[in-house]
């Protein structure tokens, strides 16, 4: 019973607002530290690749951003689904706060993929199953943001966005398994839960540190964004008018 009560307590925007600030601060710190370590490792510690020379270093941002692009979508769909079923305002706000970060991660994955594909494969863009489905993911993010932007009523925006997100979830397994199902140009996964990794240890460590850095970055940015959204949505409530940054 106590656990339930706690959960309900934190699902109220008023209690989550200061908590989000704390989480945001800690995540920013973690993100900066990990980024510094990760970048140092990606450029100075990780050795040259036997085949791709220095060019492979793009992997240290390409793979983390591609993972994040899919993961953020799943998290958004999760929060949106919770918001739809339990009618919690906060979870819909979380989904809304994550969307721009997810779109940016997808864009980074596509951009760095192009800059990696040109020297290695020999083409900026190929109509490969992996690339096409990732592009569709980018469009889905843009569609979600546009839908939320064009509905004035916050409640309707939340719920309409949730339906769209849940429909679009079909795309995520397609992206992930595309390299297995349609074996074309994009290489398979280097790291998998079942088969371990096909990278040398130090490269893998650098990539994982960068992944955690991207993770912390996404948490930090979305926490700060959700705070702004909470203020916007709850501007008529008493607790907002009593906040020190509002009263000044």
């Amino acid at each position, binding site marked *: 019973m106590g656990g339930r009560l706690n959960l309900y307590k934190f699902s109220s925007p008023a209690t989550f607002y200061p908590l989000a600030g704390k989480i945001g601060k800690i995540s920013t710190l973690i993100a900066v530290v990990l980024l510094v370590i990760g970048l140092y490792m990606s*450029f100075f510690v990780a050795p*040259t690749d036997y085949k791709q*020379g*220095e*060019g492979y*270093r*793009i992997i240290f*941002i*390409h793979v983390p*951003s591609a993972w994040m692009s899919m993961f953020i979508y799943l998290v958004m769909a999760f929060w949106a689904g919770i918001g739809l079923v339990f009618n919690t305002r906060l979870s819909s706000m979380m989904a809304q706060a994550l969307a*721009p*970060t997810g779109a*940016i991660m997808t*864009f*980074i994955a596509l*951009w*760095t993929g192009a*800059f*990696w594909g*040109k*020297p290695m494969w020999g083409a900026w863009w190929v109509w490969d199953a992996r690339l096409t489905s990732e592009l569709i993911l980018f469009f889905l993010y843009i569609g979600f943001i546009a839908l939320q932007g064009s509905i004035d009523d916050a409640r309707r925006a939340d719920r309409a966005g949730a339906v769209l997100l849940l429909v679009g979830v079909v795309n995520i397994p397609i992206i992930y398994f595309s390299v297995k199902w349609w074996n074309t140009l994009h290489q398979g996964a280097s790291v998998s839960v079942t088969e371990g990794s096909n990278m040398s240890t130090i490269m893998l460590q650098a990539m994982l540190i960068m992944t955690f850095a991207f993770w912390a*970055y996404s948490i*930090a*940015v979305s926490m*700060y*964004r959700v*705070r*702004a959204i909470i*203020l*916007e949505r709850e*501007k008529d409530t008493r607790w*907002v*008018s009593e906040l020190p*940054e*509002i*009263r*000044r």
Partner: protein
Amino acid sequence: MKGGLSEFFAMGGYALYVWGSFGMTALLMIAEPLLVRQRRKAVIQRVSRLVRLKSEQKL
């Protein structure tokens, strides 16, 4: 050391691609927090004006 540095920036001939990727990523990951901060400032300004307006009406 100078040779080492320019060699580092040359990235074994992949300078355009490596720095193009990392540069764009850095650009976006600096721009996004700045935009969020701007949004927060704008929201706080708007809401505090609203709150002040309301309290004046009450008086």
